[in-house]
């Protein structure tokens, strides 16, 4: 096994371990009550000021179990922000441009790792259609009774919910058509 493979295998293991535990660092986006249970009427454990760092664990509905310096409890998902914010949006286009400039050579290293198969502008451009692989996809079509059994197994119940109206787009003018 090459050092690269070992490194890769190691990182996959790490990835699995971190998601099994699913602990993620997050910050509160506003002053928020830490609750003893995952519901709004539960007892207050503490009030966490905006910007408090917490480690999130299990999710239950719209709530995360968290650990903070002020104790353990539950926070609404909506009160938390994960990660560093805005850099993703601004870097996306630049990356695409870079890719277009570097062309296929930009993905040489990545495609050299077996099983990685990046899907990006360069690999899309260089790809041939694969009707045989598509035929394998199309060969799988679980019949109605299998789908019903699948839902029944976990007591999944159909609920009637209408699509909500989308919020009005913000003041920034968009030329794109709004669907709905």
């Amino acid at each position, binding site marked *: 096994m090459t050092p690269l493979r070992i490194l890769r295998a190691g990182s996959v293991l790490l990835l699995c371990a971190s998601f099994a535990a699913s602990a993620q660092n997050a910050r509160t986006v506003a002053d928020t009550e830490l609750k003893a249970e995952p519901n709004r009427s539960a007892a207050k454990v503490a009030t966490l000021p905006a910007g408090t760092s917490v480690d999130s664990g299990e*999710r239950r509905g719209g709530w995360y179990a968290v650990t903070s310096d002020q104790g353990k409890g539950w926070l609404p998902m909506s009160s938390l922000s994960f990660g560093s914010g805005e850099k993703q949006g601004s870097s996306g286009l630049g990356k695409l441009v870079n890719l277009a400039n570097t062309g296929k050579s930009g993905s040489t290293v990545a495609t050299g790792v077996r099983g990685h198969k990046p899907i990006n502008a360069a690999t899309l451009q260089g790809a041939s259609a694969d009707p045989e*692989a598509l035929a394998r*996809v199309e060969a*799988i*079509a679980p019949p109605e009774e299998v*789908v019903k059994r699948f839902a029944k197994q976990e007591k999944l119940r*159909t*609920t009637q919910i209408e699509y*909500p109206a989308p*919020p009005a787009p913000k003041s920034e003018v968009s030329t794109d058509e709004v669907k709905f």
Partner: protein
Amino acid sequence: MKSSSKLLGGLLLALATVPAAQAFKLNLNLNKIGGVAKDAATLGSEVSPEDERQIGRELAAVLVGVAPPVWDREVQDYVNTLGRWIAQHSERPDLDWHFAVLDSDDVNAFAAPGGYVFLTKGMFLRLQNESELAAVLAHEIVHVLDRHHLAAVKKEAGVGLIAGLASLAGENNDHSETIDKVASAGRELYARGLNKEDEYSADLKGAVLASRSGYDAYGTLAVLQNLQAMDADDSSLELMFATHPSPSARIERVLPVLEMSLADYQDLKMVPGRFQKMRARLAR
């Protein structure tokens, strides 16, 4: 040779991967192109269901050409069964839906017209439970329902595409050019992405579809926060971040609607058990 048999022969040659019956349907429906559109507001709606399917097959074949489906029948059966359960709660339950996990470590998901939905192994491995997988599939299902890619391909290939499709049914049998044009438009589209409003709409309507199917409404938010937590410079996110609004922007758009309209559905199912069994198979 009579023109009808010549036409059918040409179609069969052109669409070697399409069963004859389907190719014949394509012929019949091509005659309707240019007719009255049911919904003039939607670019994609002017295309017949058969042509939508055919365009989707060309696009889907390119995607699996980049990263083939994972060789694990149990996992593929699982995503197809889940996907079909969700699609049954949509406005187009009768499409011939097909789902697949693609063998790529990238974190991403794709749809193609006519009922094709793919997610990468990398995306699957980031998820925690079936409600989050349902959210990802439902987002892609909405792109199919609302013909987002179809409209974009039509816009890209424009009048040329319609003329090319029509030429399949005419005397001029230069169909390979049309098929190349569709595939080329698809490559461009998947590299460039849909417009942002299509993505926001797919988040919102996808959250509803997942809840209609019995899954907790916050799966969509959990997936977006999961993406938000990732390092934006992670190469596995390259195309996702190049083609979608930032996770923060998506959360900002979906959250108010979630809180206002779907908060009552947060106690629906998350289904971690059988999902994690599948994830363990993929992680091997």
